């Protein structure tokens, strides 16, 4: 069954423009809107609703949903579908994310566009399935073996769960890279109002298909791409390019080069720098009350919600407190964090883990800026009061 994105049908299937839905469902909505035509998934709390949504909606827009035998198979099928030309995604939570790590690396190595939604729960191991956490932030960055760069987004609201799913597809298509949507059990199970964008309110990015003469085409080089781009054009399977795709270190033709250090260096440096070169352009933050702030929260995802409340509480008491929210956490927004650290005296990093994003924040902050880690584990969000107390202690 061949998929063709049908905007009218999509809108009809999604229904009213304004709805009150769950964060997980909003991820499915985002996928449908983005033109995702393949979802391979496996049940896991608190991410199952994404798959359930896809099972319900995908066939009605002529897209394929398949419940695979496990998470390894899910991301495998997703990558295979991507090579046949599909925008493809899977959704999971911690244990499944761990299982996906090898093929996550495969997608990075083979430059396969795809989206992995990780509705984070506490860990390690089985942890607390129904409770949210932000403990996989470093896993998204470093979880597969070897050198790599990551692209990851962290929604704080249900609306963002939908919008950032679309954005995840756009970035994955643009960079030919698996993109992690790092949501969590809190945002995933939260119900909020969303406004579904009309067709002209959305920007959709598609991978650049290979069009060069088939005899001349070199699949893994930046020498044949549009000016300045390090992302090779995509030789979709079935279009006659007869491309060999391997997770082994490969030369520019795609052939194994397992005993050739220069080929490895060239490949890895390119697939990392195609993302890090655009670090500033990719940086996507929200700034709240930062103009005159002396203390700033640097946050992301669910923990930005109580942090914002704490900012409002502090402002009411005349305290100069602001917040920087990283919508895109990887590649790490070095410059904006560094600039902020030169303006404020103190940065507080509330996270639903024992302190993960606080590490790159510390690494890239000015040395004279005080960094306070405000971790919370156990499956509960920070309370605004708790964060306000930390502010008072500064």
């Amino acid at each position, binding site marked *: 069954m061949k998929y063709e994105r049908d905007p009218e049908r999509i809108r009809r299937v999604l229904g009213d423009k304004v709805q009150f839905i769950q964060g997980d469902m909003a991820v499915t909505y985002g996928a449908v809107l983005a033109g995702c035509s393949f979802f391979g998934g496996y049940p896991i709390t608190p991410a199952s609703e994404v798959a359930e949504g896809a099972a319900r909606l995908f066939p009605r827009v002529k897209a394929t949903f398949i419940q695979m*035998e496990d998470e390894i198979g899910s991301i495998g*099928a997703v990558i*295979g*579908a991507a090579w046949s030309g599909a925008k493809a995604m899977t959704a999971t939570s911690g244990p499944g994310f761990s299982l996906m790590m090898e093929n996550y690396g495969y997608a990075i190595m083979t430059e396969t566009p795809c989206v992995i939604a990780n509705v984070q729960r506490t860990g390690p191991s089985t942890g607390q399935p129904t409770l949210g956490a932000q403990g996989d932030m470093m896993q998204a960055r470093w979880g597969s073996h070897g050198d790599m760069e990551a692209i990851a987004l962290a929604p704080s609201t249900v609306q963002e769960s939908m919008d950032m799913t679309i954005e995840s597809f756009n970035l994955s298509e643009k960079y030919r890279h698996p993109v992690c949507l790092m949501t969590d059990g809190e945002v995933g199970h939260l119900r909020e109002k969303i406004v579904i964008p009309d067709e002209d309110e959305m920007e959709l990015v598609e991978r650049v298909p290979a069009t060069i003469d088939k005899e001349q085409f070199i699949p893994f080089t930046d020498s044949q791409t549009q000016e300045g781009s390090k992302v090779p054009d995509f030789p979709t*399977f079935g279009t006659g390019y*007869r491309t060999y795709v391997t997770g082994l270190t490969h030369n520019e033709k795609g052939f194994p080069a397992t005993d050739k250090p220069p080929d490895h260096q060239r490949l890895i440096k390119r697939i990392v720098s195609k993302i890090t070169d655009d670090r500033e352009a990719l940086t996507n933050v929200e700034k709240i009350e930062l103009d005159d702030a002396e203390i700033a929260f640097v946050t992301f995802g669910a923990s930005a919600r109580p942090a914002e409340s704490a900012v409002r509480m502090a402002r009411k008491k005349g305290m100069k407190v602001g917040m920087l929210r990283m919508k895109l956490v990887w590649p790490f927004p070095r410059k904006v964090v560094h600039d902020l650290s030169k303006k404020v005296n103190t940065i507080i990093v509330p996270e639903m883990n024992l302190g993960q994003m606080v590490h790159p924040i510390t690494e890239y902050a000015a040395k004279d800026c005080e960094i306070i880690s405000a971790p919370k584990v156990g499956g509960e969000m920070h309370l605004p009061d708790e964060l306000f107390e930390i502010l008072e202690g500064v």
Partner: protein
Amino acid sequence: MSEEVKKKMIDANELRDKYLREGMLPTIFCNGCGHGNAIDYTFWAIEELGLDMDKVALASGIGCSSRIPGYINADGLHTTHGRALAFATGIKAANPDLHVIVFTGDGDCTGIGGNHFIHAARRNIDMTVILLNNFIYGMTGGQLAPTAPIGSIATTAPYGNIEQAFNISELAKALGANYVARWPISYPYQPIKSIKDGIAKKGFSLIELMSPCPTAYGRRNRLGNIEALWNWYEENTILIEDYEKIINYGTEEEKNSIKEKFKIGVFQDVDKPGFFGEYEKLVNMLIEKDDAKLKGGSQ
């Protein structure tokens, strides 16, 4: 000599030029390895079917046999260990026009990849799996495979294998795969016919080819030279039809003599519906319903 055989003798080199991916040669295969024969048989099957190689997508996992897609001039996805069938499921889902052919080994497909194998066969996904069973993990130097006969020597079974072996074709048959066949690589024509039938078949096809690994298996198990390895297949296999005859009508002595033998031949050839065909029916039904609702003015 039949016309078909004559044609083959004439065209053998031409055929290789047509389908091999020259830039990838030489192959990694050892002397006496059966995997080259499997490539050859696949080429004959593709040639006889007249497939458009632009519409063939190959997938494989990790191991010696999984290197085969590299040598064939078609789209190929050389994936992670054991996962080829999952990737292949996605390839087929997003472009049903593609003939999806998977090359895999006994360790890749039924060791680490057993779960994907079970479910791809159970879903009857439209793909052809050419599984090269050499009883050993060859690429990593001869570790114990789940298919190794009891008593086999491997680097991780230095005193002889004590585990029951996996019977891959029987399993695929039990799972309801549409086409299942097993042949030793030493049979020159039957594998071609089975690969051909497997590709032409809608649904899941498994062609299990018993392929010798003289380096990692034959040497360690003192099976002798290549000729002896091929003879081993002759002595240790029995056609399914002959097996059934002896089991039903043979003497106790005859029955005992075939107990340990590998059945070869076509295990299953049926036409049951597969996942994607059924999914498409479901989609059409839903779309029709949605469109009827729209026309009916309920929205």
